[in-house]
């Protein structure tokens, strides 16, 4: 059995959680509400995070386009995903919500643009 300690981030109370993991059995203590139990269980079984970054833009009025994962992605895959993001470039124009990388690292999650990028009209 393994015990993990963490701070619950669901609300400002910030309960100190103790989560005992025994195979697929998870026991959460220290939580003052049910949401803490859900958070603690998720954190030890499959922690997920939203991922935001930027990709290079070619021919745009700005050099980078900011992106976000449409849903939370597995925490353990974030550095692999950053490698994919680093090697991605897009051409202007880009609209908010455009899929920039689909199904990143086979996570089933798309990375989408969080801003629009216009074609650079100042170039001659």
């Amino acid at each position, binding site marked *: 059995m393994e015990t993990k300690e*963490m*701070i619950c*981030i669901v609300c*400002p*109370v*910030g309960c100190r959680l103790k989560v005992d993991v025994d195979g697929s059995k998870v026991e959460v203590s220290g939580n003052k509400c049910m949401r803490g139990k859900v958070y603690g269980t998720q954190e030890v079984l499959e922690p997920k*995070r*939203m991922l*935001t*970054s*930027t990709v*290079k833009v070619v021919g745009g*009025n*700005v*050099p*980078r386009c*900011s*992106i*976000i994962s449409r849903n939370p992605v597995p*925490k353990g895959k*974030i*550095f692999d995903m*950053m490698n994919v993001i680093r090697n991605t470039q897009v051409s202007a124009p880009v609209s*908010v919500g455009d899929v920039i990388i689909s199904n990143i690292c086979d996570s089933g999650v798309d990375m989408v643009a*969080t*801003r*629009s990028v216009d074609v650079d009209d100042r170039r001659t």
Partner: protein
Amino acid sequence: MNTIDCLVIGGGSAGLAAAISAKENGIDQILVLEKESEAGGILQQCIHNGFGLHTFKEELAGPEYAHRYIVKANELHIDVRVETTVLSVSEDKVVRYSNAKEGIVSVKAKSIILATGCRERTAGNILMPSKRPTGVWTAGTAQKYVNIDGYMVGKRVLILGSGDIGLIMARRMTLEGAKVEAVAEIMPYSNGLTRNIVQCLHDYDIPLYLSHTVISVEGKERVEAVVLAEVDEYKQPIKGTEKRFEVDTLLLSVGLIPENTMAEDMGVELSPITKGAIIDHQYQCSVEGVFACGNALLVHDVVDYVSEQGALAGKFAAKYLKEGLTQEKGMPILAQGEASFVVPQLLKTTADESVKLYYRIKQPMKKAKVMIKHQGEIVFEQVKNHLVPAEMEQLVLKPELIAKLSDECVLEVINLGN
């Protein structure tokens, strides 16, 4: 000289919301002046998510939140001039600005909304001994280089200050391949949200040194090392507690100051505590027809409230232009006890709708009593749990309560302990 009804200085969250609101309240001639190459303000570089929970009930990335206001402003045909710098503003509301297309222009504004945002405290503000090597940046400047321009600012990083910008940049630099050695915080508690401490520091095993500060920066051309020391209760470094970190970059996240040089030029009275304008509940400053909102008024931690204030400033500017606003002195609201300030600072008897007061507390408290006192009597009280200085508190005064006030009142916060 051209005359304009409403001139908004700053095209960020506050300025866009103010312009949109003024337009929706019947003002046609609106001009927004923005110094950057696009509107949206600081949100354009805040690529992380978590914005708009109150306004849109979703967690948007900063640029997405900004985008919604930019689209709205476009739909309303609001004139936003980018890459435009305001050169001077006079007491009689003559604004001189310049940009590449128009050159230098003077316009007479009937009303002005100050939405100039805030700026970062720098190394010069915190007396940090060094030979001024390169590699020392404010966290927001580094954020702009990384997120907007796509330049990394260093490989081994130490961050001073554990406010949200410092924490967010710790994660951002790590994701982009840098090694963040430590975050140091002079206070015994972090000024960032717990969520950011967990997701930006704990997730990446970045140590947080509380009650620590930078005592020296080594390196002549480029930062080579940064020395931290623990501080005592008077924030003085304790001998023998020094820790040396070999880093090439020091990021400073040591506070924000409302930008009010233009307000000062106009003779707007500023609060020594918030460093923003002193306003009444209609967001009007000490100069008639001049309004202030957003981070220029007081430094916020949640953008939704910046937009909310912008919308109020725009609404009252429209009211001022159409029917005028009372110019009476107003009743002061003072902050006492554990409350460090309260904004707005003045109430006027004409308040016929609810007034939201914004205040911050001085130290973290598990339980606190918040009171409004008038002529020595408590006219309102509430108990609040889990208050931290990093999160701005709010209190809504109902018109029935305001009607009972005849002079100065006090917002007092008392620590009830555990």
